[in-house]
């Protein structure tokens, strides 16, 4: 209508600028620097336009700028489709839209762009602070829309009204969030750039790669044990198994078969838990050794690493049972064993000689060699440190005999190398070891700094046997944690330090909140929704029953709000209300009170109409008149009038 064509007022322009800033600022980290600067310049230009009341830039210039911005984004990303380029384009449009505010209509477009940018922000991060920040953005943007409609109220009034409206929208949000039938994405192919930034254990292990991870306190996964949390020394979270070695780097087998179900017979007591895995951008799932079942949509590689059928892009929760006493791989294939014996030709002569010597000493007794190897590691007095010296080409030799300082990957690599040199099949297992129980919610939290590498050796009749060479030299790493194991003074991630108890307490709390947030808000996927609704008693929830429940509950909320809408808060004098009851009763007898009629005048008319109750009518009218019009009515007058009227039966 005509209103949408009204020019944007100064106040509205300020509001729009505020809304745009609120939407843009959280994204400054995500867009290229040139774009952030250009957008900042556009905002400053807008501010100057408003402040000085200059003319808006000509249309051709804006068109030119849009083209330039689009080309710039394309040059940057070689694409204008996808997450980051999309956001960058939105920023371009928002910044230039601000320079084109001609009519109130443009204000709506700007506000909608701001909402889009809020969504864009969620592509990068969905933490609680982000959520709070976007609440502020939505509040300001909504206030901007209010101002676009009516710019007269003061800013705090606009914000207050926006807050009121958003508060009223909350029940709908909650209902829709819980009950809106969820669909598991993606609906269409995701552009590749979606998972670039995840860190974690990789396909390969070379000296320093795990030590590097130990500098990160990012969470790898959380575990909710059904029973008691097992002791730290049992918490080996199995990840990629790396049998291949090229002299420096261990890596996973590139092609290998996978079992659709657990191939080995399990034995011993089970440990039950739910694991909530953070996205890792790989196919990897982690599970406590040895898994007794597989999560849905997953398989077990032939070297017993659980893998997902899809890349783990979202936080995933799965239930697991572990059987620590299981002996897996008793009937291991020859090919696997051959792989577990392969060594690159040449290099590390001292270790090779050592292995050969063990073999000669113990003959065919692999188990004895294993014991000897452990004994050897123990006697070497190896030092567990985050800062091992750089090693040359014969890195195993240098570690075992010269520097004697290393992190877990050195230990594991050296141990496997030595065993293979002795002819015992062995391999490196990467994963996480330990974790930390959050006393607030009881979850065990496993962070990147819990990354670890250990070894497995194959002994005939026993299958694969786990040996953690780190545990031999630094038992505290396994029994307690990283901080206890490394020499004091070495730099640890802040959260791995144990000396600041209050910080740790605070961290526990924060982490519990984050976990709750992850579990219930971010992890609310179709599966969780079904489980939750089934738990609420909505048996076998499907989209129909969800939609029905949604409709009913939204209807109830709507009804409540509508009642508020139509409530005409007009205070009726209680005496007058009583009088209306009285006149209503008389109306039933044919004497209708006119709304303009004074009480006494009406009483006379009514008394004439119903002579049998004349005195009652007159007295009630007098009482009422006294209440409404006389000075200082006495306490209890109202009650007396009410009683009188209640007892009045003409």
């Amino acid at each position: 209508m005509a209103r949408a064509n009204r020019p944007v007022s100064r106040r509205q322009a300020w509001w729009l600028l505020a809304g745009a800033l609120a939407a843009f600022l959280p994204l400054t980290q995500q867009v290229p620097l040139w774009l952030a600067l250009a957008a900042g310049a556009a905002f400053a230009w807008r501010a100057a336009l408003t402040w000085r009341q200059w003319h808006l830039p000509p249309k051709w210039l804006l068109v030119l700028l849009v083209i330039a911005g689009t080309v710039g984004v394309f040059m940057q990303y070689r694409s204008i489709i996808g997450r980051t380029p999309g956001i960058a384009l939105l920023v371009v449009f928002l910044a230039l839209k601000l320079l084109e505010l001609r009519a109130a209509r443009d204000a709506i477009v700007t506000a909608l762009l701001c909402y889009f940018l809020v969504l864009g922000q969620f592509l990068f991060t969905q933490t609680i602070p982000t959520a709070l920040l976007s609440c502020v953005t939505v509040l300001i943007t909504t206030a901007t829309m209010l101002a676009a409609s009516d710019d007269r109220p003061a800013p705090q009034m606009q914000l207050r009204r926006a807050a009121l409206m958003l508060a009223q929208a909350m029940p709908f949000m909650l209902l829709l969030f819980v009950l809106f039938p969820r669909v598991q994405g993606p609906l269409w192919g995701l552009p590749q750039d979606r998972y670039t930034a995840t860190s974690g254990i990789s396909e390969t292990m070379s000296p320093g790669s795990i030590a590097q991870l130990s500098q990160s306190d990012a969470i790898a996964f959380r575990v909710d044990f059904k029973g008691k949390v097992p002791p730290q020394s049992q918490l080996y979270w199995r990840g990629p198994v790396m049998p291949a070695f090229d002299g420096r780097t261990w890596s996973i087998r590139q092609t290998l078969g996978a079992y659709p179900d657990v191939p080995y017979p399990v034995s011993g007591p089970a440990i039950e838990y739910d694991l909530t895995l953070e996205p890792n951008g790989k196919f990897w799932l982690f599970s406590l050794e040895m898994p007794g079942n597989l999560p849905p949509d997953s398989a077990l590689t032939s070297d017993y690493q659980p893998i997902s059928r899809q890349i783990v892009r979202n936080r995933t929760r799965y239930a697991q049972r572990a059987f620590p006493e299981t002996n897996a791989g008793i009937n291991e294939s020859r090919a696997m064993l051959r792989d577990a014996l392969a060594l690159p030709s040449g290099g590390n002569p001292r270790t090779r000689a050592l292995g050969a010597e063990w073999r000669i000493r113990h003959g065919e007794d692999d188990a004895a060699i294993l014991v000897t190897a452990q004994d050897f590691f123990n006697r070497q007095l190896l030092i567990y440190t985050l800062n091992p010296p750089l090693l040359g080409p014969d890195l195993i030799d240098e570690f075992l005999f010269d520097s004697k300082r290393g992190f877990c990957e050195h230990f594991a690599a050296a141990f496997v190398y030595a065993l293979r040199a002795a002819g015992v099949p062995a391999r490196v297992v990467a994963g996480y070891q330990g974790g930390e129980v959050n006393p607030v919610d009881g979850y065990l939290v496993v962070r990147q700094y819990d990354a670890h590498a250990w070894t497995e050796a194959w002994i005939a009749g026993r299958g694969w046997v786990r040996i953690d060479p780190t545990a031999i030299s630094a038992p505290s790493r396994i029994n307690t944690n990283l901080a206890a194991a490394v020499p004091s003074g070495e730099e640890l991630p802040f959260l791995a330090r144990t000396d600041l108890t209050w910080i740790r307490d605070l961290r526990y709390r924060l982490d519990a909140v984050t976990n709750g947030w992850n579990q219930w808000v971010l992890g609310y996927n179709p599966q969780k929704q079904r489980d939750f609704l089934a738990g609420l008693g909505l048996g076998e929830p499907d989209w129909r029953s969800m939609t029905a429940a949604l409709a009913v509950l939204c209807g109830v909320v709507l009804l409540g709000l509508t009642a508020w809408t139509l409530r005409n808060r007009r205070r009726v004098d209680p005496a007058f209300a009583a009088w209306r009851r009285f006149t209503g009763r008389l109306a039933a007898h044919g004497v209708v009170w006119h709304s303009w009629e004074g009480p006494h005048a009406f009483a006379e008319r009514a008394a004439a109409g119903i002579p049998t109750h004349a005195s009652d009518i007159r007295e009630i009218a007098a009482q009422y008149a006294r209440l409404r019009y006389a000075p200082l009515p006495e306490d209890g007058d109202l009650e007396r009038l009410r009683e009188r009227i209640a007892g009045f039966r003409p």
Partner: protein
Amino acid sequence: MRLPELDAVLADINRIILGKERPIRLALACLLARGHLLIEDLPGVGKTTLAHVLAKVLGLEFQRIQFTSDMLPADILGVSIFDRGSGSFHFHPGPIFTQVVLADEINRATPKAQSALLEAMEERQVTAEGKTRPLPEPFFVIATQNPAHQIGTFPLPESQLDRFLLKIELGYPDPAAERELLAGADRQKMVAELAARVTPQRLVELQQAVREIHASPALIDYVQALAAHTRTAPRWQAGLSPRACLALLAVARAWAMLDGRNHVLPEDVQAVLPGVIAHRLRPVDDVAHSDPEAVAAALIEAVPLP
């Protein structure tokens, strides 16, 4: 809290002017509310008698001023005359210096003379020769005006009319009252025989008491609602002024007092409404002079009691 002296006053007047209880009561209420009264009626229906009787029973001095076209302000207010003996000016007060003034046929005088009276009436004092002289207390003007628009008259402008608290009509007596009048004793003689029922001091006290009659918030809401209606509804030419609302409340208070109540009821407001709006409110379609009672009834029925 009935006031017997006021009942007696009313009874006395009603004995002489027959069949006019309501206008008489309104006139007395007007006086008690410290206002002035405008009577628009034909000659000979008893306007002069009413003024006379009122003054008499209330124990007040009475003067009648017949307005004519050649009247000057000095004829009403008084003149200063040079006294050769003393060599100074002496102020000779005009007929207005009395407690009850009957300004007869006020619309015969020129606007200049009219405004002299009206200003004195409003201010309750006379300024002449640079000196201000207060008028006596109580002070009550009853002005009469001929209804027909006669040539050579100066109808009071509407702004001046507002200075009268009430405007009433006496009208012809009903046949029974008229018969009694014709058959009864000589009115002049009856008036002369009347005795004062109250003293002027008491009257001033009563005027004070009127102001203290309670008007509850609900009642004030009602007066406001009436005024608001006249200001917005399409059937009125111009809404009631705040002064008119004050007048309405003042007369309603006096009316309540005459009823022996210490508070005002909507019925009081409704009873005095015709007199208050007769010279203040005109319906849009009022071509001839509408009956104020009918106009007031229309207003009352349009505004519900709050």
